[in-house]
């Protein structure tokens, strides 16, 4: 299983599209935005924009990594016959989806940590040890609902439909969840939708931590609820996609 995990992670890191969308994009936008607005401060909390942007772009990178490493590759594997090749080896069925989920989590790390590193090095962002210790694990484990969503998409669609659906899902969650601009800037009807999305809860947990506050239980509970719901959907879809008829 560790070897399978390594192989899965390795292949995504060799994929140009993945590196561009997931690692280069958030890093480049962080550097750009932090340069333009980094020194402004948030009136309500007094947090520097460079810190808030670190959370936003880190969240975008992590979200993108978890969806991009799952939906399309998995749809392709099912379609191209690679899944069947695996099914005729002693590899148990459940391990395939378990490794997919774990490798998505592993692949979240470079996207997330590079943005954090850029924030520390270029914007001299500094947080207390307790804040770091809460922020990084929360933003890491918080991607589980998105990885589950990606796996569900990969199980339910063909590669050519998985591609646009994954893209729409990824950018939709990022934009509406307030990762690219504050949710407050949206019309009020859209705000209601935006606040109901898992990406909003996910990023909010990070924003609250860097503002020095304890994230509200409602956000944590909502994100956990999404993880359970989307995880259930992913398992159901996986079973359906791998059933032998």
């Amino acid at each position, binding site marked *: 299983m560790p*070897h399978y995990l390594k*192989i899965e992670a390795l292949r995504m890191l060799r994929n140009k599209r993945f590196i561009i969308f997931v690692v280069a994009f958030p890093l480049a936008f962080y550097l750009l935005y932090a340069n333009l607005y980094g020194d402004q401060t948030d009136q309500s909390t007094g947090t520097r924009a460079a810190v808030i942007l670190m959370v936003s772009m880190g969240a975008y990178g992590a979200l993108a990594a978890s969806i991009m490493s799952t939906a399309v590759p998995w749809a392709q594997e099912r379609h*191209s*016959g690679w899944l069947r*090749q695996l*099914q*005729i080896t002693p590899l148990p069925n459940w391990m395939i989806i378990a490794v997919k989920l774990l490798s998505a989590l592993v692949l979240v790390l470079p996207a997330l940590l590079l943005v954090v590193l850029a924030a520390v090095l270029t914007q001299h962002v500094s947080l207390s040890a307790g804040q770091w210790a809460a922020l990084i694990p929360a933003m890491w484990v918080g991607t589980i609902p998105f990885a589950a969503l990606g796996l569900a998409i990969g199980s339910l669609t063909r590669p050519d439909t998985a591609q646009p659906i994954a893209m729409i899902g990824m950018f939709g969650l990022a934009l509406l969840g307030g990762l690219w601009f504050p949710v407050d800037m949206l019309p009020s009807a859209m705000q209601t939708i935006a606040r109901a999305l898992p990406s909003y809860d996910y990023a909010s947990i990070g924003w609250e931590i860097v503002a020095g506050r304890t994230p509200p239980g409602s956000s944590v509970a909502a994100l956990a609820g999404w993880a359970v719901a989307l995880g259930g959907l992913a398992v159901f879809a996986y079973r359906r996609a791998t059933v032998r*008829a």
Partner: protein
Amino acid sequence: MNAISLAGVRKSYGEVLAVDGLDLTMEPGRTVALLGPNGAGKSTTINMLLGLTRPTAGEVRVFGRTPDDAVAAGDVGAMLQEGTLIPELTVRELVDFVRRLYPDPLPLTELLRVTGLTDLASRRADRLSGGQAQRVRFALAIAGSPRLLVLDEPTAAMDVESRRTFWQDMRAYAAEGRTVLFATHYLEEADENSDRVIVIARGQVVADGTAAQIKADAGGTSVEFFLGAQPAARLDALPGVTGVTILSGRATLRTTDTDATVAALYRATTLEISDLRIHGADLEDAFLALTRPSEA
């Protein structure tokens, strides 16, 4: 214990009966060819043996177990009719990954060597030619050193030279006491590389035996000569003869025993025979005769 047994196996896809009542057993250590035209049910049969497809009726056993259990135990390796590799991984990474999934695999260097992949080991899968990719898929099939190797039209993308090397590799693998089942449309492939040929058509077994037996069953060889205006009576009573046709003075005798027929032709008749020719059993004809839908 049989390597493979199929008892009353059927598989239907809606209206289509892909496999229509197969009863087969295969002893371990043999190489068996599954020969049949497009749509005969070869892949369906193979997929049922591998547990990828469930039979509609009947029972499939691999080394006395269900296909799923045999696969889980690492007893089975296969090259499916269609399949691609993971484009971003190298040949070595792919082969090593699959071999590690098996309890008792072949050593990596040996595996790369016997499949002729040593020089391609660092090449990414998306930069392989069609024939090279087939070779990698063969390496994946034997990586776990399985007791049963199943190959579904393995030489489809290969040129003549690659085919020859491929069959040599396959025979070397089989020589170590393993059981091999391969599907093919190529008649000579079945003839040259197996010790038993099972011909299937429309989901049923239409012939089963050695390639020589199959040729004989389907009419065997023919003896042709110039008869001219001589009477053709009693030619059909000669030993081995199964059919007689006479066309513009030339007689063609279909026979199951060329030697006996020719000997009797000279010794037991008073005919003036000239321009005698013997046509070797054409496996192609045999195959077509066997798999053609019977004219009712």
